[in-house]
């Protein structure tokens, strides 16, 4: 258990319905994430993937179950988990540097202002915004705003980075460069990251494991796809790799048809704690049950 930085245990979320009863968005959801791992959750809207992320962030509470981060139960938001919001959520009355410094000052409450700004400046530079420190969010393009959002999240040096469709509002070109930046930063700092996305290519490029959620209500994790593309993959040549299309096709098939089919009909012997782990990039490999998680972890530390 010790290698699991995050352990999501049997969480459920229900919303009361008019006229009594409750709609179950998802229930009995289990997920473990290792230190340094990049995990993407893919699913259609309404499957509750954002709710899962908000529960991990502590912004939402599960109706059942617990989330354990680094040995401690999540009871609310905390500085060890940073969130990058889809809508970037910058404070518009602060400058770029001010937004990042706000986070730094929240983490290091006893630091003098100059030291706070010094560290904030470093993170602004890290995301390639040197020179724009004094600008207000309204003066920035969508991509630049999200860079500030990333800098603000990284500036508190969190154990876990939580991203809720961070690039979905951006144009394809900007999205690509930001994916490169995120991958570079996460690889060099071994940042544990959980990202929500519905962009299959984004998931394949960034994630070590891709968690597939069925459609809601009553959504669940259908399976976990092991990304077998080499670690030094490149966004522009990734599609020429042998493993790429089998993985992509698997994800697309899931989103197109299996996401509904699997919700309605559970396969026999299906265990929510040990959902099937598949590696479509390796043609010979069979579905590996439980041990798959560990196998990925071992492979990661070896490679």
């Amino acid at each position, binding site marked *: 258990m010790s290698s699991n930085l995050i352990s999501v245990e049997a969480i459920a979320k229900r919303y009361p319905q008019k006229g009594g009863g409750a709609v179950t968005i998802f229930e009995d959801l289990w997920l473990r994430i290792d230190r340094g791992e990049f995990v993407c959750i893919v699913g259609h809207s309404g499957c509750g993937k954002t709710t899962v992320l908000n529960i991990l*962030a*502590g*912004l939402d509470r599960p109706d059942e179950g617990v989330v354990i981060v680094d040995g401690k139960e999540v009871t*609310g*938001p*905390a*500085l060890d*988990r*940073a*969130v990058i*919001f889809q*809508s970037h*959520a910058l*404070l*518009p*009355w602060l400058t770029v540097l001010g937004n990042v410094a*706000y*986070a730094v000052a*929240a*983490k290091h409450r006893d630091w003098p202002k100059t030291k706070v700004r010094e560290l904030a400046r470093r993170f602004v530079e890290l995301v390639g915004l040197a020179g724009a420190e004094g600008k*207000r*969010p*309204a003066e920035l393009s969508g991509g630049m705003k999200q860079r500030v959002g990333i800098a*603000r999240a990284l500036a*508190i040096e969190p154990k876990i980075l939580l991203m809720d469709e961070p690039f979905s509002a951006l144009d394809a070109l900007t999205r690509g460069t930001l994916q490169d930046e995120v991958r570079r930063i996460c690889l060099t700092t071994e940042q544990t990251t959980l990202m929500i996305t519905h962009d299959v290519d984004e998931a394949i490029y960034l994630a070590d494991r891709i968690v597939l959620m069925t459609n809601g209500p009553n959504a669940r994790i259908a399976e976990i796809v092991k990304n077998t593309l080499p670690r030094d993959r490149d966004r522009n040549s990734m599609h020429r790799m042998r493993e790429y299309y089998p993985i992509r096709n698997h994800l697309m098939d899931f989103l197109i048809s299996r996401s509904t089919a699997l919700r309605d009909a559970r396969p026999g012997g299906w265990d929510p704690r040990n959902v099937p782990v598949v590696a479509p990039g390796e043609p010979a490999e069979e579905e590996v049950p439980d041990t798959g998680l560990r196998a990925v972890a071992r492979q990661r530390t070896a490679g």
Partner: protein
Amino acid sequence: MPGPERLRPLALSLAVFAAFVTVWAASTRATGGAADLDPEYAALMGAQVTQGASAMPGPGEVAAKLWSHIRDPFYDAGPNDKGIGIQLAYSIGRVLSGYAMAVVVAIPLGFLIGMSQVLSRALDPYIQILKPVSPLAWMPLALYTIKDSNASAVFVIFICSVWPMLINTAFGVSSVRKEWLNVARTLEVPAWKRALTVILPAAAPTIVTGMRISIGIAWLVIVAAEMLVGGTGIGYFVWNEWNNLSIVNVIIAILFIGVVGMLLDQMLAAAARAVTFPE
């Protein structure tokens, strides 16, 4: 040098003024007196009968009187003859003290209402009922309980300034974007600091808008309130000059009330610009 585009509105503005003054002068011009009046009777009746002068002062008369007020705004020749500057100062003093009290009450209370659904629902009926009441309706109650006409006028200003600020503050606070609050929550910013570093700057434009509406209303109400309580102030000045049948002074008072009102509004407009952020 401003270009012709900038000069055009100025030219039009001056033309409107010139046209207004011309019409004004023409319509108040003396029409010539009745020729065959008994001189004793004429002496009794004054210029309106002897020279056909209008009871309404012309622009020249108003300008001359205006100049005399501007030259000596602060003279004090007894209770019924004070310079217009003194009268305005009394009014501004009452407005600012009533307004300041309203700020102290309305903004913190509005903050609480905006943050608490329960409080908002609980107080809403009272606000809805009290808000549309003309502030002058409070005057007898104030006079009876406070037993001081000056303090009653200040109270009336307080009660009329409180509602727009209260409602705008509550609205501004309650409609702060949830994601901004979530940012602060994920950074473990304590609640009191969240109120100061997120809610206050986010709601500031709405709050200042409420303050701007309030100062406008307060300045409208003070004239009427001072007509009622009497003694000092620009409202009393207007009423007193009406009783003196000095239309000239009433017109000048209107002008000064307008100028002061504009200045008060502009001050809060500047404050609004300072706290507004582009999104």
